[in-house]
């Protein structure tokens, strides 16, 4: 079976992200998965056990401080060389900022088609995408070159399949043309122990109805009780209640968790764009006519400052 390259998405502390496990699972239905680690020194060794657990038969490691010191261009060059050498059946990357950027450059280098935000991929290369605020399902295909796709997090259930990957170190030489955008600083921000928004199986979001930044503690409390991530509507972000990186919707993140709880969110189409493929949706809003109730599996018309504390209390009671 031919190789399927999976470009590993990991945290800077060498934690394999769930989307990587989803991609390895998907890759096994297309061929033999080979993980590609593009990052700082030590990355492949730190990641190999987890990658093997989900079926990576091989790991290609391109590790250097240099590859990490410039914005994505060196990674695309290494990947293009690898693709030319191993002629994989497909290349999968995460549909996140960097994954899309690497894929974009790879597409131009190889003059190859690209499909982004893919939620499913058949063995014949037919991809499924959900577009227009979750309203339309599209089947599409790369018609020039190999299937080069970015996979949206939370699309596939990761399934382990033990393998013992051999690690092959790739030679990295970064050409001058790839050194144009230099990363001069990386600032880590405290995130606590909450799961990442796009990968979380539970997301609790707050909107304008939350009222103040301080009141978001209520949203956080419920999220923590359910082991979920915290999201926010654009109205809440624009009002300064919560940081932009947690925005769900048209100009923010798209999430597709098992459970989405919307607190004080009216459900404008821009918000629905980011969450309506969630499996189960629950809404609390004082306005019974709010459009969010049109998609909620369970809705409570009421004051969130009464309903949410009672919800939290009841969850604690049941433990």
């Amino acid at each position, binding site marked *: 079976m031919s190789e399927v390259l999976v470009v590993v998405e990991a945290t800077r502390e060498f934690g394999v992200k769930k989307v990587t496990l989803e991609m390895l699972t998907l890759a096994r239905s297309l061929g033999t998965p080979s993980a590609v680690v593009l990052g700082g020194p030590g990355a492949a060794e730190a990641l190999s056990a987890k990658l093997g657990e989900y079926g990576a038969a091989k790991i290609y490691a391109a590790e250097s401080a240099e590859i990490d010191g410039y914005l994505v261009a060196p990674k695309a060059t290494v990947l293009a060389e690898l693709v030319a050498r191993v002629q994989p059946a497909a290349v999968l990357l995460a549909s996140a900022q960097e994954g899309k950027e690497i894929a974009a450059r790879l597409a131009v280098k190889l003059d190859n088609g690209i499909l982004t935000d893919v939620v499913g991929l058949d063995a014949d290369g037919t991809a499924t995408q959900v577009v227009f605020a979750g309203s339309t*399902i599209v089947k599409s295909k790369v018609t020039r070159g190999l299937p080069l796709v970015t996979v949206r997090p939370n699309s596939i259930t990761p399934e382990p399949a033990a393998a013992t990957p051999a690690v092959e170190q790739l030679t990295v030489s970064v050409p001058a043309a790839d050194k144009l955008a230099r990363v001069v600083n990386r600032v880590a921000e405290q995130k606590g122990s909450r799961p990442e928004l796009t990968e979380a199986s539970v997301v609790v979001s707050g909107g304008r109805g939350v009222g103040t930044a301080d009141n978001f503690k209520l949203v956080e409390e419920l999220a923590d009780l359910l082991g979920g991530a915290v999201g926010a509507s654009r109205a809440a972000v624009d009002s300064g209640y919560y940081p932009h990186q947690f925005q769900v919707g048209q100009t923010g993140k*798209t999430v597709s968790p098992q459970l989405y709880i919307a607190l004080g969110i009216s459900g404008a189409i821009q918000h629905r764009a980011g969450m309506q493929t969630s499996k189960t949706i629950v809404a609390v809003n004082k306005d019974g006519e709010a459009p969010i109730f049109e998609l909620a599996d369970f809705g409570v018309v009421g004051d969130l400052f009464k309903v949410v504390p*009672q919800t939290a209390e009841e969850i604690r009671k049941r433990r």
Partner: protein
Amino acid sequence: MNIVVLVKQVPDSGADRNLRTDDNTVDRGSANNVINEMDEYAIEEALKIKEAHGGEVTILTMGPGQATESIRKALSMGPDKAVHVLDDALAGSCSVTTAKVLGAALGQLNADLVLCGAESTDGRVQVLPHMIAERLGVAALTGARKLTVDGGTLTIERQTEEGYEVVTAETPAVVSVWDTINEPRYPSFKGIMAAKKKPVQTLALGDLGVAPAEVGRAGATSAVLEHSKRPPRSSGTKVTDEGAGGTQLVEFLATEKFV
């Protein structure tokens, strides 16, 4: 500084949007077409840079004839002129071929800085800035929430999952921005009137040295095979809180095995 801002006309994301049943492309005919929202932030950023450092701001749009409306709207915010890449053969172009065409147009415009929105609200593909930079062999600073210009040095801050990165490059460069970077101005009445007289140059494929077979449906590197409407979600149970709303909510979560 010679700044070019990429502007795309898109169907209004606040209304129903559709793909055409005949060729699976975006239905622009029946939609209310507007400037891609994120591009307004790029225009604002360009105008701020021009105000601080001098120079010229040019709008570059690839799109059908009706995109003229969005070009005039963009110009009413304050840019100096526009270039409209207009050719029937462009219909159905994929991102790879769009980058080829825009790259060819940019090759004639001699920009120090190309500004654009991080993504468009229709495709949300996010790949164009890096594709264009790769084609032109210039730096790409993408996903900026802040941009500073110091002579020929550009520095951005970009949000990442774990914090943020500070990235720097010399001009010429492509910079894409998110809606966190500024607050776009509204066109003034004077601006709207002035926009009507601003020069809009039209370029066809022949002017760019690109063959019709390389673009549009003929040259696309990917294809939509079929599309269907996702069944709309139906609303489930709705209760009014009369003192036990939270408890009822947890009962629902329990039946769904979330607690």
